[in-house]
């Protein structure tokens, strides 16, 4: 009995009296045998399941009628190569099922010999690795997108419908000072100086689908704050169901700084411009009831306006009926400048005061006459002191030389 047992074991090992067909049927992989003319001799049920063609339909027909493949009828066909080299080979092939779907398979092909060592056919097995391949591709894609997300300098975050953080990138860790593990699962609004406003923000995303340039301030664990603008949108699954919010923040600290600096500079420039205008048109009181306003530089309409306002204000303020406008510092007087002066003088007269135009140099006198500007209604003098005498006289004042200083100065 023992001996029988041993004998049968030996028979199995040597392959004698074994029902290869039964084994063939039991193998989980898709296997088929073809002859040297590529006719399918036999195939197992997994083969039919893989190809989508019944065993009855495939057996007896050419191997390339079961599947179509990109390597069929080429020298790269595994069977062709096995036939040529008479060795086992393994290859990854793309096959097309009867229903047209593509399959990626690992194909293992081996030669079959008869007792005389003649090649009688080939055995070919297929393993469907389509799903693995897809998973691999998906992994590759997701790791690619992940690295894109991580590489972003803008803090990115995904928030669930409950307002809890689902995912963050490195920039978010840096800006909050909190690690990824501790961020995920916590309330999104916790990390802002105004949690209420942050909450409102993501609620708005859920109700409107997206928000743009929503201003918030992120608080770092060290109390340092970062001003950001949030752009966020909902994201959906394949069934178009809203899964959560994807939010990207843009750090605007630098931009804010620049804007502030710019605003400051603009303010300084405006203030200086104002000051220059004021400085360039001083109005001084030289005697009770007498003002002196020296004009320096060219008179354009803006300056005239400014000058007129100041002169009139000062006349009323100091209750001075005489104003000396000195044009010694005015380089040239053209018709327009003259008109500006005449306007100013008319306005002063309406108030009930009088203007004496002083500092009319010979050149200016010549110009005025050549231009035909009529200043005949205006009292004019060549020098400020001459004008002052007119003003004094008009006010009924007289300058007397003191007897005590007379001898010394005369």
């Amino acid at each position, binding site marked *: 009995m023992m001996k029988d047992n041993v004998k049968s074991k030996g028979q199995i090992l040597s392959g004698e009296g074994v029902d290869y067909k039964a084994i063939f049927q039991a193998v989980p992989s898709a296997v088929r045998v073809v002859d040297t003319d590529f006719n399918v001799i036999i195939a197992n049920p997994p083969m039919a399941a893989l190809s989508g063609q019944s065993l009855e339909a495939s057996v007896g027909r050419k191997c390339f009628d079961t599947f179509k493949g990109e390597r069929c009828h080429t020298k790269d066909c595994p069977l062709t190569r096995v036939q040529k080299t008479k060795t086992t080979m393994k290859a990854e092939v793309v096959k097309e099922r009867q229903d047209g779907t593509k399959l990626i398979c690992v194909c293992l092909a081996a030669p079959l010999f008869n007792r005389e060592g003649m090649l009688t056919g080939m055995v070919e097995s297929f393993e469907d690795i389509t799903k693995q391949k897809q998973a691999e591709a998906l992994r590759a894609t997701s790791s690619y997108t992940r690295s894109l997300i991580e590489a972003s300098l803008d803090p990115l975050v995904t928030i669930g419908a409950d307002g809890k953080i689902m995912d963050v990138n490195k920039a978010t860790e840096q800006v909050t000072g909190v690690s990824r593990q501790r961020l995920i699962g916590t309330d999104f609004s916790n990390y802002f100086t105004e949690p209420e406003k942050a909450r409102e923000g993501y609620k708005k995303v859920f109700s409107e689908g997206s928000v743009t340039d929503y201003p918030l301030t992120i608080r770092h664990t060290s109390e340092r704050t970062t001003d950001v603008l949030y752009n966020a949108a909902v994201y959906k699954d394949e069934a178009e169901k809203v899964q959560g919010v994807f939010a990207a923040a843009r750090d605007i600290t630098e931009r804010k700084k620049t804007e502030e600096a710019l605003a400051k500079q603009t303010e300084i420039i405006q203030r200086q411009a104002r000051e220059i205008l004021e400085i360039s048109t001083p109005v001084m009181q030289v005697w009770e009831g007498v003002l002196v306003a020296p004009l320096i530089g060219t008179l354009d309409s803006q300056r005239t306006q400014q000058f007129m306002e100041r002169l*009139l204000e000062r006349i009323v303020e100091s209750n001075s009926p005489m104003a000396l406008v000195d044009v010694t510092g005015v380089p040239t007087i053209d018709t327009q400048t003259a008109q500006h002066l005449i306007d100013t003088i008319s306005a002063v*007269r309406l108030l*009930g005061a009088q203007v004496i135009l002083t500092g009319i140099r010979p050149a200016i006198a010549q110009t005025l006459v050549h231009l035909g500007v009529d200043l005949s209604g205006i009292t004019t003098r060549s020098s400020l002191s001459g004008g002052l005498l007119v003003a004094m006289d008009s006010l009924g004042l007289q300058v007397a030389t003191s007897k005590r200083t007379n001898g010394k100065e005369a």
Partner: protein
Amino acid sequence: MEAENISVVKVRDVLMVTVPPDPDDETISALQAQVLQAMEQYQVKGLVLDISTVETLDSFFARTVVETVQMVALMGGRTVVAGMRPSVAITATQFGLTLGNALTALDVDRALYMVSDRHQEKSHGTKPRA
């Protein structure tokens, strides 16, 4: 109705006329009539037109003032316009409005001097010629 706002008061030998802040055309016409009536009624040297509360000066007002000055002159009186605000003067100049030959004064005090003083042109007041 608006005429109630106009005050024409005789002070010694001068008529004091105060113009309301924002006079409309009717008020201005009524003012002229009242002034001329008072000129007939009282023996005065002239009148002081106080416009220190007036914030806007339109062309009708300016023309009426110029006319009134001429009418009062025909009746033997002198008119001094007093207290025009700087902003009003600037606007008037920009629109080319003038008060013709009307005398002007910085305030009522100076205006009173000018009306009574025969030699006013040598003292405080001014007489625009332009």
